[in-house]
């Protein structure tokens, strides 16, 4: 089986706080992996380690290895800008730029040097279609993205991310700020995207994890308690704590 990301013995510290403890996880290509676990267990810190967003925090320290396509992304030779192009991210709160719909999607392409108008137009349309947003916004590409609904904004953020053609998409609770209908749309979208992208999604919603993911990892207090095929984790978890969590006895 081909792995896109291989994490081994990852430890993450913020100052003296030991956030992630000896975390090891292998993530397969073109598949959806769900990360579940109670708040504060380190899921978000984990996915932010995968595109080095934690580098923005002064007190961040880590050891262990994180391999993307067998390359260590924390190697000093690695270009972080290039890495983030390959590992895209969708945030918890929809955060489109205060720019037009078009400029939001074209942004990533422009910062990577694309200036050809025709190419931009084509890629923007393609990305918006892939994010199932095109029909809703094609009449108002030049209007501010701030005027879209929350669900549309989040799909715009996904379109913006896929426009730069990453290999991996990290999603940090992408539906937690959305209503059920928007959530369904995003989940449908995830299903369609998984054949082209490796997706890692953090979620607090157990049903969502079972609906969208093939693989699941359960985090608790900075450790991975259990990981494996989603079906198995939810039907016959090996660990008592996993069972307690997914049946709603704590968390």
């Amino acid at each position: 089986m081909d792995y896109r990301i291989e994490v081994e013995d990852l430890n993450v510290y913020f100052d003296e706080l030991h956030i992630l403890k000896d975390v090891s996880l292998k993530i397969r290509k073109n598949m959806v992996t769900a990360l579940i676990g109670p708040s504060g267990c380190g899921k978000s810190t984990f996915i932010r380690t995968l595109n080095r967003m934690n580098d923005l925090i002064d007190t961040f320290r880590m050891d262990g290895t994180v391999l993307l396509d067998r390359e260590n992304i924390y190697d000093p030779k690695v270009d972080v800008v290039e890495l983030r192009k390959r590992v895209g991210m969708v945030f918890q709160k929809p955060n489109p730029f205060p720019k037009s719909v078009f400029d939001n999607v074209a942004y990533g392409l422009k910062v990577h040097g694309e200036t050809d108008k025709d190419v931009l137009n084509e890629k923007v349309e393609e990305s918006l279609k892939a994010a199932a947003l095109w029909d809703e916004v094609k009449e108002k590409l030049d209007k501010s993205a701030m005027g879209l609904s929350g669900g549309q904004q989040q799909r715009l953020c996904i379109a913006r991310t896929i426009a730069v053609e990453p290999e991996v998409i990290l999603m940090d609770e992408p539906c937690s700020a959305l209503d059920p209908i928007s959530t369904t749309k995003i989940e449908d979208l995830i299903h369609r995207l998984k054949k082209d992208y490796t997706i890692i999604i953090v979620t607090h919603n157990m049903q969502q994890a079972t609906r969208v993911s093939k693989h699941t990892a359960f985090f608790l207090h900075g450790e991975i308690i259990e990981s494996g095929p989603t079906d198995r984790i939810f039907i016959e978890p090996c660990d008592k704590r996993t069972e307690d969590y997914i049946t709603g006895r704590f968390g």
Partner: protein
Amino acid sequence: MSRETDEFLIEKGLFLTAISSVIVIALIIIFIFWEGYPAIVNVGFFNFIFGMDWSPSNGLYGVFPMIIGSLAITGLSLLMAVPLGVFCAIFMAEIAPGKMRKILRPTLQTLSGIPSVVYGFFGLIILVPFMRVQFGGTGFSMLTASLILTVMILPIIVSVSEDAIKSVPSEYKEASLALGATHWQTIKNVIFPAAIPGVITSIILGMGRAIGETLAIIMVAGNVVQIPTSILDPVRALTSNIAIEMGYATGTHYNALFATGIVLIFMILILLVIANYFHYKKKVTVGGGYL
């Protein structure tokens, strides 16, 4: 005392304190108009505003060269202070490490606390001789005054712009970096555009200080009533005109100085309206700016 009377007294008391400051300002403005109006009537509105000669002993009261003087000094200092201040603010908000920021901020705040007479004195002793040696002439010039003003308004522009840049939500920054943009691309394309309304506010405040500044300008601008043909020419600002001549002015001359004050008030009002228009317009396009 009952609760109702308590409430009544407190509300009325607050109303009085609020209204008293408005009344004081209104009285001052009424007074200035009262004293300035006769001069405008005597000299004629058009002759006063667009008159090229200010010579009270000959009965000539034209403030046009001083309107130009004030605008030119302010404009030139903004031309220098805005880029300098904005880049400094970007550096402090985004690039400077924590320790450096801890030194830079108080230093700038100290700059804004220095009284203008000290700046003027410094300009007179250091800058004027320097300009004389470098560019010839007397050294008293529009450029000298603008340089001093630049230093004076820099702290306002830097600190207000820095606050505006810092209050741009970190979500924008993260989103941009996560797309593989570099730090500078993120600053240029996302953070700074979102902070523009706040930056405009900082420029308005700086402009207000520059156009109202008097003492430091008197000390270094040369105060010759003329329309400058080069930035090395001496000029007189409207504020300087009032301060220089108020000690001995009588009759129409005295009224004309108040009328100069009226012109100054209107000039500041017009500039504020223009600046606020841009501020508002930018805020709308940005979709709710910051500060």
